[in-house]
Protein backbone atom coordinates (compact mmCIF):
# COMPACT_ATOMS: atom_id res chain seq x y z
CA UNK A 1 0.00 0.00 0.00
CA UNK A 2 2.82 2.37 0.84
CA UNK A 3 3.96 2.11 -2.77
CA UNK A 4 0.62 3.55 -3.83
CA UNK A 5 1.17 6.63 -1.69
CA UNK A 6 4.63 7.18 -3.15
CA UNK A 7 3.54 9.96 -5.57
CA UNK A 8 2.35 12.16 -2.70
CA UNK A 9 5.44 11.42 -0.61
CA UNK A 10 7.66 12.19 -3.59
CA UNK A 11 5.89 15.53 -3.97
CA UNK A 12 6.43 16.38 -0.31
CA UNK A 13 10.11 15.45 -0.39
CA UNK A 14 10.61 17.34 -3.65
CA UNK A 15 9.07 20.43 -2.08
CA UNK A 16 11.48 20.34 0.84
CA UNK A 17 14.41 19.80 -1.49
CA UNK A 18 13.43 22.60 -3.85
CA UNK A 19 12.83 25.15 -1.16
CA UNK A 20 16.27 24.40 0.20
CA UNK A 21 17.65 25.08 -3.26
CA UNK A 22 15.60 28.27 -3.57
CA UNK A 23 16.95 29.67 -0.33
CA UNK A 24 20.52 28.92 -1.37
CA UNK A 25 20.16 30.51 -4.80
CA UNK A 26 22.02 33.78 -5.29
CA UNK A 27 21.46 34.04 -9.01
CA UNK A 28 18.21 35.93 -9.73
CA UNK A 29 17.06 33.71 -12.60
CA UNK A 30 17.72 30.56 -10.61
CA UNK A 31 16.01 31.99 -7.56
CA UNK A 32 12.87 32.82 -9.51
CA UNK A 33 12.88 29.49 -11.33
CA UNK A 34 13.38 27.41 -8.22
CA UNK A 35 10.82 29.41 -6.26
CA UNK A 36 8.35 29.00 -9.14
CA UNK A 37 8.92 25.25 -9.17
CA UNK A 38 8.55 25.05 -5.41
CA UNK A 39 5.26 26.93 -5.51
CA UNK A 40 4.08 24.81 -8.44
CA UNK A 41 4.73 21.64 -6.48
CA UNK A 42 2.97 23.14 -3.48
CA UNK A 43 -0.06 23.98 -5.61
CA UNK A 44 -0.20 20.46 -7.04
CA UNK A 45 0.19 18.93 -3.59
CA UNK A 46 -2.62 21.13 -2.28
CA UNK A 47 -4.96 20.22 -5.15
CA UNK A 48 -4.17 16.50 -5.26
CA UNK A 49 -4.34 16.01 -1.52
CA UNK A 50 -7.61 17.86 -1.09
CA UNK A 51 -9.16 16.08 -4.07
CA UNK A 52 -8.10 12.75 -2.62
CA UNK A 53 -9.44 13.62 0.83
CA UNK A 54 -12.71 14.97 -0.60
CA UNK A 55 -13.11 11.75 -2.55
CA UNK A 56 -12.57 9.70 0.59
CA UNK A 57 -14.99 11.90 2.50
CA UNK A 58 -17.69 11.55 -0.16
CA UNK A 59 -17.40 7.78 0.28
CA UNK A 60 -17.68 8.26 4.03
CA UNK A 61 -14.19 6.89 4.51
CA UNK A 62 -12.94 9.84 6.53
CA UNK A 63 -14.86 11.58 9.28
CA UNK A 64 -16.22 15.14 9.35
CA UNK A 65 -13.62 15.95 12.01
CA UNK A 66 -10.82 14.79 9.73
CA UNK A 67 -12.32 16.82 6.88
CA UNK A 68 -12.51 19.92 9.09
CA UNK A 69 -8.88 19.56 10.13
CA UNK A 70 -7.82 19.17 6.48
CA UNK A 71 -9.81 22.30 5.58
CA UNK A 72 -8.19 24.21 8.43
CA UNK A 73 -4.64 23.24 7.39
CA UNK A 74 -5.46 23.74 3.72
CA UNK A 75 -6.64 27.28 4.43
CA UNK A 76 -3.38 28.07 6.23
CA UNK A 77 -1.44 26.73 3.27
CA UNK A 78 -3.54 28.60 0.70
CA UNK A 79 -2.93 31.91 2.47
CA UNK A 80 0.83 31.36 2.74
CA UNK A 81 1.00 30.15 -0.86
CA UNK A 82 -0.87 33.11 -2.33
CA UNK A 83 1.25 35.55 -0.32
CA UNK A 84 4.41 33.94 -1.69
CA UNK A 85 3.02 33.97 -5.24
CA UNK A 86 2.24 37.69 -5.02
CA UNK A 87 5.68 38.55 -3.63
CA UNK A 88 7.43 36.44 -6.25
CA UNK A 89 5.31 38.03 -8.98
CA UNK A 90 6.28 41.50 -7.76
CA UNK A 91 9.91 40.46 -7.71
CA UNK A 92 9.69 39.19 -11.30
CA UNK A 93 7.97 42.44 -12.38
CA UNK A 94 10.81 44.39 -10.69
CA UNK A 95 13.13 42.29 -12.86
CA UNK A 96 15.07 40.96 -9.91
CA UNK A 97 16.26 44.42 -8.99
CA UNK A 98 14.84 44.64 -5.50
CA UNK A 99 16.80 42.99 -2.69
CA UNK A 100 14.05 43.66 -0.15
CA UNK A 101 11.45 41.96 -2.33
CA UNK A 102 13.78 39.02 -2.83
CA UNK A 103 14.20 38.65 0.93
CA UNK A 104 10.44 38.84 1.42
CA UNK A 105 9.79 36.36 -1.37
CA UNK A 106 12.39 33.97 0.09
CA UNK A 107 10.76 34.16 3.50
CA UNK A 108 7.33 33.65 1.97
CA UNK A 109 8.49 30.58 0.03
CA UNK A 110 9.93 29.22 3.27
CA UNK A 111 6.58 29.80 4.96
CA UNK A 112 4.94 27.91 2.09
CA UNK A 113 7.20 24.93 2.77
CA UNK A 114 6.23 25.04 6.40
CA UNK A 115 2.55 25.16 5.41
CA UNK A 116 2.78 22.26 2.97
CA UNK A 117 4.79 20.26 5.50
CA UNK A 118 2.08 20.72 8.11
CA UNK A 119 -0.59 19.86 5.58
CA UNK A 120 1.23 16.77 4.27
CA UNK A 121 2.15 15.68 7.79
CA UNK A 122 -1.55 15.52 8.55
CA UNK A 123 -2.96 14.26 5.25
CA UNK A 124 -0.48 11.58 4.15
CA UNK A 125 -0.52 9.58 7.38
CA UNK A 126 -4.29 9.88 7.31
CA UNK A 127 -4.36 8.19 3.91
CA UNK A 128 -1.82 5.59 5.00
CA UNK A 129 -3.50 4.87 8.29
CA UNK A 130 -6.94 4.60 6.74
CA UNK A 131 -5.70 2.47 3.89
CA UNK A 132 -4.30 0.00 6.38
CA UNK A 133 -7.62 -0.10 8.19
CA UNK A 134 -6.12 0.87 11.53
CA UNK A 135 -8.78 3.47 12.13
CA UNK A 136 -11.77 1.29 11.62
Amino acid at each position, binding site marked *: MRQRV*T*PLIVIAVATIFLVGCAVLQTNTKSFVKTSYQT*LFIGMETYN*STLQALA*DLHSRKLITDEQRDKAIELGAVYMKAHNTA*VELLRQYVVAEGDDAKLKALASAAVLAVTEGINEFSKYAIPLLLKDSEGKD*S
Partner: protein
Amino acid sequence: MNTKEQLLLLSVIDILLRYGPKAIMAIAEAMKIETVTADDVRALFIDKRPEDFFE
Protein backbone atom coordinates in the same frame (compact mmCIF):
# COMPACT_ATOMS: atom_id res chain seq x y z
CA MET B 1 -9.35 -7.73 6.36
CA ASN B 2 -13.08 -7.12 6.56
CA THR B 3 -15.33 -5.70 3.82
CA LYS B 4 -15.10 -2.12 5.07
CA GLU B 5 -11.30 -2.28 5.13
CA GLN B 6 -11.23 -3.77 1.64
CA LEU B 7 -13.48 -0.99 0.35
CA LEU B 8 -11.25 1.58 2.00
CA LEU B 9 -8.13 0.06 0.49
CA LEU B 10 -9.63 -0.05 -3.00
CA SER B 11 -10.83 3.55 -2.68
CA VAL B 12 -7.43 4.83 -1.64
CA ILE B 13 -5.71 2.92 -4.45
CA ASP B 14 -8.23 4.31 -6.93
CA ILE B 15 -7.78 7.87 -5.70
CA LEU B 16 -4.00 7.76 -5.66
CA LEU B 17 -3.82 6.23 -9.11
CA ARG B 18 -6.16 8.93 -10.33
CA TYR B 19 -4.53 12.00 -8.76
CA GLY B 20 -0.92 11.05 -7.99
CA PRO B 21 0.41 10.44 -11.54
CA LYS B 22 -1.43 13.52 -12.86
CA ALA B 23 0.30 15.70 -10.28
CA ILE B 24 3.68 14.14 -11.01
CA MET B 25 3.24 14.74 -14.77
CA ALA B 26 2.29 18.38 -14.20
CA ILE B 27 5.31 18.86 -11.94
CA ALA B 28 7.60 17.21 -14.49
CA GLU B 29 6.40 19.76 -17.05
CA ALA B 30 6.97 22.65 -14.65
CA MET B 31 10.54 21.47 -14.04
CA LYS B 32 11.30 22.08 -17.72
CA ILE B 33 10.55 25.81 -17.60
CA GLU B 34 13.53 27.98 -18.48
CA THR B 35 12.30 31.55 -18.13
CA VAL B 36 9.62 32.43 -15.62
CA THR B 37 7.40 35.40 -16.45
CA ALA B 38 5.06 37.35 -14.17
CA ASP B 39 2.13 35.62 -15.90
CA ASP B 40 3.62 32.21 -15.13
CA VAL B 41 3.81 33.19 -11.47
CA ARG B 42 0.31 34.66 -11.48
CA ALA B 43 -1.00 31.31 -12.75
CA LEU B 44 0.11 29.77 -9.46
CA PHE B 45 -2.56 31.60 -7.48
CA ILE B 46 -4.84 29.19 -5.65
CA ASP B 47 -8.43 30.37 -5.86
CA LYS B 48 -10.13 27.15 -4.84
CA ARG B 49 -10.65 27.18 -1.08
CA PRO B 50 -10.24 23.88 0.81
CA GLU B 51 -13.94 23.70 1.66
CA ASP B 52 -14.80 23.97 -2.06
CA PHE B 53 -13.28 20.53 -2.64
CA PHE B 54 -15.77 18.95 -0.26
CA GLU B 55 -18.93 20.40 -1.85
